[in-house]
């Protein structure tokens, strides 16, 4: 047992046959499997674990569970390093590396501890009162403050581990696997209900594992736990999840849990997650989360060696380690006497029991006295000696009302103080569920009151503190929950349980010291954030009287422990200053997570390539193989341009753009949204949704349509084709597809349910290849025998079915370039084949693949808008000069009435125009702003912005479109686009630049 000099020979549930080596701050130690880092350090006599946030006071271990505020650890190194872990929850494994935090250069000599020297300058909220003058210096002060911020460190780079999520459903979810939770699970499980039982620790049994003085059905409690767990494991519908903290209780019985799947193994086996986020929907929830012990607030109660009494018992009984050789117990209740007995039993010496109660009687007190332990009744600890570890305490008698001390101080040597200030039921989840708390005067604690979701609380978290009662209540509520979830069964008979009987407590929220509060030594309330009783009182004095103000002004309860050990003490002290009831002061809001939860677990596998889908067309692989550059358009990847070797962006685009107008170009247009619309009222429906007229579109004919929102602003556009009687094929913008379909459904279902029409998305049903340019007809004719391509037989805005390269196809003669153009739709599986056939057939015509950039230039040459580029949700059709598509005759369509407001036609609106730069080679940046009156310096009044701007090789100059104030009346004006480094002079024109007569459409 090398070095483990504080290991108790015959106690604990650790596996002594499995020694484990670990390091703390670089020094190597040994513990056993089953130890936490805290218990293993205690076994090795290490008590100085960390430094506090503000004063850098030396700190040790306060607790034995997840409420620990002090013993925070940086675990592991490199990218697996993790800050702020509680030593009390880390299960040790071979090779574990732990380090203390928030100290420099080392834990024992921490320079930051000078703060402690100047502590009187740093009361609660001091920073609000200073650093204001001179103003410019605040940034420097802040730099220093920031430098001191934080506890541990983030790892340097990407997390190598894997996280999973799982959805679960339960008839009954039971949180907490102590006696109450196990009992509830047994009862619920027996009914055949689907039960999930979760506990945040590595072992079932909860507080039972820490006790040596009670029995269940005549058995040691651990035995009863083992048998119960075995029984539960045999039930097929019961799921037991260890190391799983239920972190959040959300609406409608939705809870989250964080399971630490392989943290305790050191490294996760391949493909096994490190942690798993459970998302549980439960018909009923039974909370059995136990209770947390409260510290006592006395002078220098933060010294290493001051520990919660129940934690001491846990270390002794569960881990077989002695947190001190000589203990002073400081308490306001009987439970700490069990600790005294446990210590004695483990050959630890109890130097004295200091009890604030005026007279202490009962079986536990008798037992303690029988061992010869001195009990100081009506006494308090008034000072603690020893900075890095307790060496002795001074004890004095309390005065009549407990606010001062009398008599002389007695000094007692000790290396451990085990304190107990009573119990706070763990009502966090109950309160998160929006249940109302009530104050229990006898316990001096908040307990669950009215629930607002389908839940029950049992055991210590319900204020039911006795073992027998907890078991009985657990069984009852477990069975009840299962019944309410629709299963039949009764609660099994409760086992017989015995434990020492306990009396009441005396809530004494501050133990007076020798001097007035705040003058000598510190009474800590919130250990991690260094909030003292004096700070709480100061805040109240300064008018921060709401408990929420108190929290925010002093930072009480805002540390990584979220005030599990401090909040009730703080608000009790506040209520005392305010001379108000504790329940009237109330608690701060309990928020998820119950204990801090790993960000990676919320993320799960939604990282890297699974972060978000990337959508690709069936022709994408050709583009990739042929050197295309891509751009993201919504979720889609689209070919942006196809550079040839050595070409610049501009060269490639110029080449593609010219190729289309001179010969023929080919574009993958598959991403366009497509909606199949059928039904006798389809035309009527389109007529209401689009701004133009739709009632008379013949079969085989296409029409361009514009959709507005009800506020009159442009929402989407596209070509819709009548492909049969009462049958239409609508196209939408790539980004708008999903929205448009929902839009149609919404109007149909909620406004015009009487219209007979159906919509179905068919976007990916079709691969769409657009072939554009004067030679496109010739290319197509080579591949297609069953369609007459003559301008008469196949006019602009017509659709025909035929066979292209042997593939059944729909051909649409529509054009986004102003050139002769066909959009060929084939079943998606043939998309690539079609593309390749067209490329082959087009060879002799120099067919040129092009991407979205060239498409944009070509349409801009013709002045066609792109929704989302020329529009941004604030642009109406009149602004775009598209009055021609807004029907004056139709009585109504979506957005019509809004267009009739005066503001919609105001001459002052931003209207679409063309801009020509003075120097034809200058290409304006998109997003540049246009001004009329140039000033040497901003600010200057802006007229609007450049929406589209390109070099047009077909025009031999740059072209641009812009939305500018009163633009329609400005044609011919000279304006300016002031850029960072120069001003560009522009002339306002029509937003059309090429083929103004529209002569090219027939090829």
């Amino acid at each position, binding site marked *: 047992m090398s070095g483990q000099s504080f290991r108790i020979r015959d106690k604990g549930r650790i596996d002594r046959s499995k020694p484990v080596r670990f390091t703390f701050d670089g020094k190597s130690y040994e513990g056993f499997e089953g130890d936490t880092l805290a218990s293993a350090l205690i076994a090795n006599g290490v008590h100085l674990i960390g430094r506090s946030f503000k004063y850098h006071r030396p700190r040790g271990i306060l607790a034995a569970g997840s409420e620990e505020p002090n013993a925070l650890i940086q675990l592991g190194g490199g990218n697996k390093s993790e800050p702020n872990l509680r030593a009390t929850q880390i299960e040790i494994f071979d090779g574990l590396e732990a380090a203390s935090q928030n100290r420099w250069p080392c834990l024992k000599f921490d320079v930051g501890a000078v703060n402690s020297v100047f502590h009187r300058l740093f009361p609660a909220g001091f920073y609000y009162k200073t650093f204001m003058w001179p103003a410019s210096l605040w940034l420097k002060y802040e730099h220093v403050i920031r430098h001191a911020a934080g506890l541990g460190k983030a790892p340097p780079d990407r997390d190598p581990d894997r996280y999973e999520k799982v959805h679960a459903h339960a008839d009954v979810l039971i949180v907490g696997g102590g006696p109450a939770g196990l009992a509830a699970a047994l009862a619920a499980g027996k009914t055949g209900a689907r039960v999930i039982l979760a506990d945040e620790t590595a072992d079932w049994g909860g507080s039972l594992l820490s006790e040596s003085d009670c029995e269940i059905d005549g058995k040691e409690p651990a035995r009863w736990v083992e048998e119960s767990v075995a029984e539960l494991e045999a039930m097929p519908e019961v799921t037991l999840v260890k190391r799983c903290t239920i972190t959040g209780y959300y*609406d*409608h019985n939705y809870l989250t849990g964080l399971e630490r799947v392989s943290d305790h193994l050191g490294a996760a086996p391949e493909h096994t997650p490190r942690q798993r986020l459970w998302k549980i929907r439960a018909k009923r929830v039974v909370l059995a989360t136990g209770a947390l012990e409260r510290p006592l607030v006395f002078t220098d109660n933060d010294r290493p060696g001051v520990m919660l009494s129940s934690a001491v018992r846990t270390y002794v009984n569960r881990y077989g380690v002695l947190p001190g050789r000589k203990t002073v117990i400081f308490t306001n209740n009987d439970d700490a006497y069990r600790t005294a007995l446990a210590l004695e039993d483990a050959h630890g010496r109890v130097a004295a029991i200091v009890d604030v109660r005026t007279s202490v009687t009962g079986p536990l007190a008798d037992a303690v006295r029988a061992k010869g332990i001195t009990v100081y009744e009506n006494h308090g600890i008034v000072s603690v000696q020893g900075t890095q570890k307790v060496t002795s305490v001074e004890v004095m008698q309390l005065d009549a009302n407990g606010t001062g001390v009398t008599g002389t101080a007695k000094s007692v040597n000790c290396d451990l103080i085990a304190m107990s200030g009573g119990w706070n039921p763990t009502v966090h989840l109950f309160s998160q569920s929006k249940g109302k708390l009530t104050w229990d005067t006898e316990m001096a604690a908040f307990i669950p009151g009215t629930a607002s979701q389908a839940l029950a609380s049992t055991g210590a978290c319900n204020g039911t503190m006795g073992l027998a009662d907890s078991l009985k209540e657990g069984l009852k509520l477990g069975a009840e929950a299962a019944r309410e979830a629709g299963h039949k069964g009764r609660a099994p008979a409760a086992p017989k349980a015995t434990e020492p009987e306990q009396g009441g407590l005396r809530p004494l929220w501050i133990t007076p010291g020798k001097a007035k509060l705040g003058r000598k030594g510190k009474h800590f309330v919130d250990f991690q954030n260094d909030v003292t009783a004096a700070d709480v009182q100061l805040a109240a004095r300064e008018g921060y009287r709401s408990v929420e103000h108190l929290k925010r002004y002093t930072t009480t309860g805002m540390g990584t422990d979220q005030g599990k050990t401090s909040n009730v003490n703080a608000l009790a002290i506040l209520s005392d200053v305010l001379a108000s009831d504790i329940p009237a002061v109330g608690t701060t809001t309990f928020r998820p997570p119950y204990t801090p939860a790993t960000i990676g677990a919320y993320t799960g596998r939604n990282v890297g390539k699974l972060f978000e889908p990337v959508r690709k067309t069936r022709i994408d692989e050709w583009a990739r193989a042929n050197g295309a550059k891509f751009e993201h358009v919504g979720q889609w990847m689209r070919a942006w341009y196809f550079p040839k070797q050595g070409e610049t962006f501009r060269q490639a685009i110029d080449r593609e753009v010219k190729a289309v107008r001179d010969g023929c170009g080919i574009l993958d247009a598959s991403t366009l949204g497509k909606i199949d619309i059928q039904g006798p009222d389809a035309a009527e429906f389109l007529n209401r949704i689009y701004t133009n007229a739709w009632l008379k579109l013949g079969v085989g004919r296409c029409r361009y349509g514009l959709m507005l929102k009800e506020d009159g602003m442009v929402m989407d556009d596209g070509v819709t084709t009548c492909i049969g009687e009462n049958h239409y094929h609508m196209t939408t913008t790539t980004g708008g597809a999903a929205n448009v379909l929902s839009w149609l459904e*919404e109007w149909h*279902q*909620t406004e015009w349910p009487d219209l007979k029409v159906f919509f179905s998305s068919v976007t990916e049903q079709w691969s769409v290849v657009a072939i554009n340019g004067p030679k496109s007809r010739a290319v197509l004719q080579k591949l297609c025998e069953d369609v007459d391509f003559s301008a008469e037989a196949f006019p602009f805005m017509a659709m025909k079915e035929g066979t292209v390269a042997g593939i059944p196809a729909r051909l649409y003669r529509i054009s986004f370039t102003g050139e002769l153009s066909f959009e060929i739709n084939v079943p998606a599986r043939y998309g690539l084949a079609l593309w390749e056939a067209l490329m082959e057939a087009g060879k002799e015509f120099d067919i040129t693949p092009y991407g979205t950039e060239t498409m944009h230039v070509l349409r801009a040459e013709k002045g066609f808008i792109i929704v989302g580029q020329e529009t941004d949700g604030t642009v109406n059709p009149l602004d775009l000069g598209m009055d021609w598509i807004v029907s004056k005759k139709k009585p109504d369509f979506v957005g019509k*009435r809004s267009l009739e*407001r005066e503001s919609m036609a105001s001459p002052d609106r931003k209207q679409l125009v063309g801009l020509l730069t003075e120097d034809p080679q200058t290409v304006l940046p998109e997003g540049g702003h246009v001004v009329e009156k140039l000033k040497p310096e901003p600010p200057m009044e802006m007229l609007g912005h450049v929406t589209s701007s390109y070099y047009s090789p077909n025009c031999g100059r740059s072209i641009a479109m812009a939305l500018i104030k009163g633009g329609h009346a400005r044609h011919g004006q000279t304006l300016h686009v002031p850029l960072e480094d120069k001003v560009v002079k522009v002339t306002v024109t029509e937003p059309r630049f090429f083929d103004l007569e529209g002569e090219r459409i027939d090829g």
Partner: protein
Amino acid sequence: MLHITCPWCGPRDDNEFHYGGEAHILRPAAPEKLSDGEWAEYLFLKQNAKGPFLERWSHSAGCRQWFNVVRNTATDEIIEIYPMGELPKSPEGIKAYEGNWRRQSAAEKNAKAGVSGT
């Protein structure tokens, strides 16, 4: 996470649904008869009730059907779910429906003049 019972698919998590805001906003049948202010009532003004609130949801990741819900926006408790085109039946729902200011608005009157049912 709210648990919303789609009238067709049954109870599902709220992220399967699309929220459609206040229910029973009737679209004026003769918008041209409304003043700009009255049209704005229909277009922009919200009831935004704290307490039982009548609202629309669509099961967008499921059957894509729209339906109405009475939900207490103060507690997020769902009180009633009922089909499009019908009125609430729960006492809270009826009270919320009848107390809605829209019943008196010009836009609503205009809508009622033209259509009935919804």
